[in-house]
C-alpha cells in the first residue's frame, strides 16, 4: 500500500513536471515561468541584512500561534476535508480490496509530499539565503506541525460535515467530542476572564509586557495543560540544535500520533453516522410509501436555498445573467461568516467602550463599518467570482445562447457588482446611522450625510471597474486566470499571476486617472458655484461615476466582441 502511494506520488510529480516543461514552449508560459523563478529567487536568495534566521528569529509564541490557527479553523473553517478524495481516488481506492483505514492511510501518505515541500520552501524563504544543513531541523519540525495541523483540520471538517449532513444523529454520535471541546472553550474563557485585570494592567505598561503576561497565563495551571500539546508540537521547530531537537521529538510524535488516532476514529465514526442517517432516510421513504409522510420531492430540496426573487419570463438578457450570478452568490455563500463578522464587530465595539469615554464604542463601530465598506469595494471583486471567472468553464454553453457578447459580459459583471454594492451601501448606511448617536466635533451631521452620498455614488463605479478588469483578464487570457473554484499551481502560474496583477493595477490606474481629473474639475466647479466644504464631494463623485461608467460601457462593448470572436476549444482545449 505504501509502495502504491509512493508510486502514484512519484509518477504524478514527474508527469506534472514534464507537462509544465512542455508548456514552456508557449511564450506566455515561458515569460510567466521566468518571472516566477525571479520571484522565488527574490524571496529565497536575495541578500538581507541581519538575516541570521536562527532559532531566535522564529516566533517564541509558537503554541499561541497554533492555538489561534486552530481556533480560527474551528470557527471559520469549511466542512470540506483536506483529505477529500478526488473522483479518481474514489474510483480506484474504494473499489480496491483495502480497508477504510488503509484508504485513509493512503491519503495521509500522499499528502505528506506537498506538506514537506511547503515546509522546505517556508524555511528557505525565512533563511535569508543562508540555508545550512542544520536548517533541516527546521524543515522537519515544520513538517511535523503542518502534518498535525492538517489532521486537526481534517477532524474539524468531519465534525462540521457530520453535523451539517446528519443533524441530531451526528450530535448524539459526536457528543463526547462536542462536550470536551465546549468544556475546553468554557474553561479557557472563564480563566481568561479572571485574569483579565492582570493582562489589562500589563498591556497598559506596553504591548510587549502585555504579550508576556498573556503568555505566562497561557502556560500555567489548567491553561498550561490545555496548551501543552500545542507547545509540544512546536518545540522541535524551535530547537536551537540537533540534540535538543531529538530530545523534543517524542512529545511531538505523541501529539501527531494522537491526532492520527483521532482522525481515523472520526473518519470511521463519520461513516457510521452516514449509515445511520441513510437507514433513517430509508425508514422515512418507507413511511412515505405507506402514505404516512409527504414524498421527499414535495419538500424543499435540502441543497437549494430559497430563490432571491423570481425571474420574469421576458426582459433584458443581461439582467437574467446578473440574476443567475446573484443566485449563485446567495446560494454559494454560508451564513456563518456574516454572522461571525457582525458578532465580532459588536464585540470589538463593546470591548472598546469598556472604561472609555462615552461614545467610544459607537465611534469604533462606525469606523469598523467604514473599513468593511472599503474592503467590500477594494477586495470584494477578488473574492466574489460568480461571473465570467466561474462561467467560462461553460464557455461553449454561453456561446450557444442567442445573446450579444456585450449583453453577456454586462450581465456577468453586474451580478457580483450588485451584491457588493449592497454590502458597501449597507455598511455605509449603518456607519452613518451609528454616527448620529455621537458628537463628532468638526464633522457635523450634514457633512456626514454629504460624505455618505459621495461614497455611495462612487462605490458602484469602483466596483464595476475592478470587476470588469478581473473579467477581462479571464476572457482575454483564460489560461492565465484560474477559472472556477480551483487554483492552478506551478512556478509559471506564480509569474502569470504577477503579470496579471501588474496588468490589472496598470489598467486600474488608466481607468481612474481620467475619472479623477473629471472629479477634480467637478469639485472645482462646485466650489466656484458656492457649494460648501464636504458637499463638493457629491458632484465630484457624480463626475467620477459618470466617467468610470462611460469607460465601463466601452470596455463591455469591446469585451463583448472578444467573446463573440473567441473559440472555447482553442482557449480551454477539448
Amino acid at each position, binding site marked *: 500500500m505504501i509502495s502504491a502511494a509512493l508510486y502514484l506520488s512519484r509518477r504524478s510529480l514527474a508527469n506534472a513536471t514534464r507537462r509544465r516543461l512542455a508548456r514552456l514552449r508557449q511564450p506566455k508560459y515561458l515569460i510567466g515561468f521566468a518571472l516566477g523563478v525571479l520571484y522565488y529567487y527574490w524571496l529565497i536568495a536575495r541578500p538581507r541584512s541581519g538575516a541570521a534566521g536562527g532559532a531566535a528569529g522564529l516566533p517564541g509564541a509558537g503554541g499561541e500561534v497554533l492555538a489561534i490557527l486552530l481556533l480560527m479553523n474551528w470557527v471559520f473553517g469549511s466542512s470540506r476535508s483536506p483529505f477529500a478524495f478526488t473522483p479518481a481516488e474514489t474510483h480506484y481506492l474504494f473499489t480496491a480490496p483495502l480497508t477504510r483505514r488503509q484508504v485513509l492511510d493512503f491519503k495521509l501518505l500522499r499528502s505528506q509530499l506537498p506538506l514537506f515541500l511547503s515546509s522546505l520552501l517556508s524555511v528557505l524563504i525565512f533563511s535569508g539565503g543562508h540555508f545550512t544543513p542544520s536548517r533541516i531541523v527546521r524543515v522537519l519540525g515544520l513538517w511535523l506541525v503542518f502534518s498535525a495541523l492538517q489532521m486537526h483540520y481534517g477532524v474539524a471538517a468531519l465534525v462540521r460535515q457530520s453535523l451539517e449532513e446528519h443533524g441530531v444523529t451526528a450530535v448524539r454520535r459526536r457528543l463526547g467530542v462536542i462536550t470536551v471541546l465546549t468544556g475546553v472553550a468554557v474553561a479557557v474563557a472563564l480563566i481568561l476572564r479572571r485574569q483579565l485585570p492582570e493582562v489589562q494592567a500589563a498591556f497598559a505598561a506596553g504591548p510587549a509586557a502585555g504579550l508576556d503576561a498573556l503568555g505566562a497565563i497561557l502556560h500555567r495551571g489548567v491553561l498550561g495543560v490545555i496548551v501543552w500539546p500545542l507547545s509540544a508540537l512546536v518545540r522541535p521547530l524551535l530547537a536551537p540544535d540537533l540534540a535538543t531537537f531529538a530530545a523534543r521529538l517524542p512529545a511531538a510524535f505523541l501529539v501527531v500520533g494522537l491526532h492520527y488516532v483521532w482522525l481515523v476514529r472520526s473518519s470511521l465514526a463519520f461513516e457510521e453516522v452516514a449509515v445511520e442517517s441513510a437507514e433513517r432516510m430509508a425508514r422515512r421513504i418507507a413511511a412515505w410509501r405507506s402514505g404516512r409522510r409527504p414524498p421527499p420531492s414535495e419538500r424543499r430540496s435540502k441543497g437549494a436555498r430559497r430563490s432571491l426573487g423570481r425571474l420574469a419570463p421576458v426582459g433584458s438578457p443581461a439582467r437574467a445573467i446578473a440574476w443567475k450570478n446573484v443566485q449563485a452568490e446567495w446560494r454559494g455563500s454560508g451564513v456563518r461568516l456574516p454572522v461571525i463578522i457582525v458578532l465580532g464587530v459588536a464585540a470589538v465595539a463593546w470591548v472598546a467602550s469598556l472604561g472609555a469615554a462615552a461614545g467610544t464604542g459607537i465611534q469604533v463601530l462606525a469606523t469598523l463599518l467604514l473599513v468593511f465598506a472599503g474592503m467590500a469595494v477594494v477586495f470584494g471583486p477578488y473574492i466574489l467570482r460568480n461571473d465570467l471567472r466561474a462561467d467560462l468553464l461553460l464557455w461553449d454553453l454561453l456561446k*450557444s445562447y442567442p445573446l450579444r457578447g456585450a449583453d453577456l459580459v454586462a450581465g456577468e459583471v453586474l451580478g457580483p457588482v450588485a451584491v457588493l454594492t449592497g454590502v458597501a451601501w449597507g455598511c455605509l448606511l449603518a456607519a452613518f446611522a451609528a454616527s448620529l448617536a455621537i458628537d463628532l466635533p468638526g464633522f457635523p451631521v450634514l457633512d456626514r450625510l454629504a460624505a455618505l452620498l459621495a461614497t455611495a455614488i462612487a462605490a458602484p463605479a469602483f466596483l464595476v471597474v475592478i470587476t470588469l478588469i478581473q473579467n477581462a483578464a479571464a476572457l482575454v487570457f483564460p489560461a492565465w486566470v484560474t477559472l472556477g473554484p480551483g487554483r492552478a499551481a506551478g512556478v509559471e502560474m506564480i509569474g502569470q499571476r504577477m503579470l496579471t496583477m501588474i496588468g490589472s493595477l496598470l489598467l486600474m490606474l488608466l481607468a481612474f486617472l481620467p475619472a479623477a481629473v473629471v472629479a477634480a474639475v467637478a469639485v472645482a466647479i462646485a466650489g466656484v458655484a458656492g457649494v460648501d466644504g464636504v458637499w463638493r464631494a457629491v458632484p465630484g463623485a457624480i463626475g467620477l461615476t459618470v466617467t468610470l461608467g462611460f469607460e465601463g460601457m466601452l470596455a463591455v462593448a469591446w469585451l463583448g466582441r472578444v467573446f463573440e470572436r473567441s473559440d472555447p476549444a482553442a482557449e480551454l482545449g477539448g
Partner: protein
Amino acid sequence: MIEVRGLTKLYGSLVAVEDLSFSVAPGEVLGLVGPNGAGKTTTLRSLVGIVRPTRGTISIGAKRQLAFMPDEPRLFEYLTVEEHLRFTGRLYGVRDSDGRIPALLRELELAEKAGALPDELSRGMKQKLAIACGLLHEPKALLFDEPLTGLDPAGMRRMKQTIVERARQGAAVILSSHLLHLVEEVCTRVLVIHRGRLVAIGTIAEIVGSRPDLQGRSLEEVFLALTGT
C-alpha cells in the same frame, strides 16, 4: 433547413473537419457517425456557432431557432431545475415559458426534481435537464450529441420518442452518436465522417447499395468497413 457547404475547421496544423457539405431538411433526422476524433463534435459546435469555421458556409437560421444538446450536460451549479428552464426561456425570449415548463418537466420526467440543484441529480437527469433547456424554445433545428448517455432504458425510449416527435413537428435534426442501433432506429439518413472528411451520406440502403461489397452485412460491419477501423 440546415445547409452546410465546404465546412473546414483547422486547429493549427490539425485538420478537424475538411470540406464537409450536407443539408438537412425540416422533418429529417440526420445521423452523424464516425470513430472517435472523426470531427463529429467539431461539426456540431461549428453549426451552433461555438467555434468559428476556418472555411465554408453554414446556413441554419437565427440562433433563437437552434438548440444544441452537448454530450456532457452543461449546467449552472446554483440554479435549480426549474430555474434553469426559466433562465433559458428568458435568454431565448420565450414569452409563455410559465406554461411550457411544467409540460416539459413532465415529458422528461423531471417534475419531482423541479426544486433540486444539479448536484442532487443523477447523470441521466442532468442530461434530461440539458435537453429540456434545449427544447423549451421549440427550435426549428436540433443538434444532439450522444443524447442517450447516462439514461436508463425507459429514459432512452422516452428520448427517442422526443427526438422523433420534434422531427415530425417539422424540426431539422442532427444526431451524433456511436450507438448504431439508435441511428438505425431514429435517423432518416446517415452521414459517415472519418478523419474530418465525409465518407458516405444517404439512407442506410443507399449507402449499402453504393458498395456491392457491403451487401448483406450488419450496420456495424458497414460502419467498420467505411471508416477502415
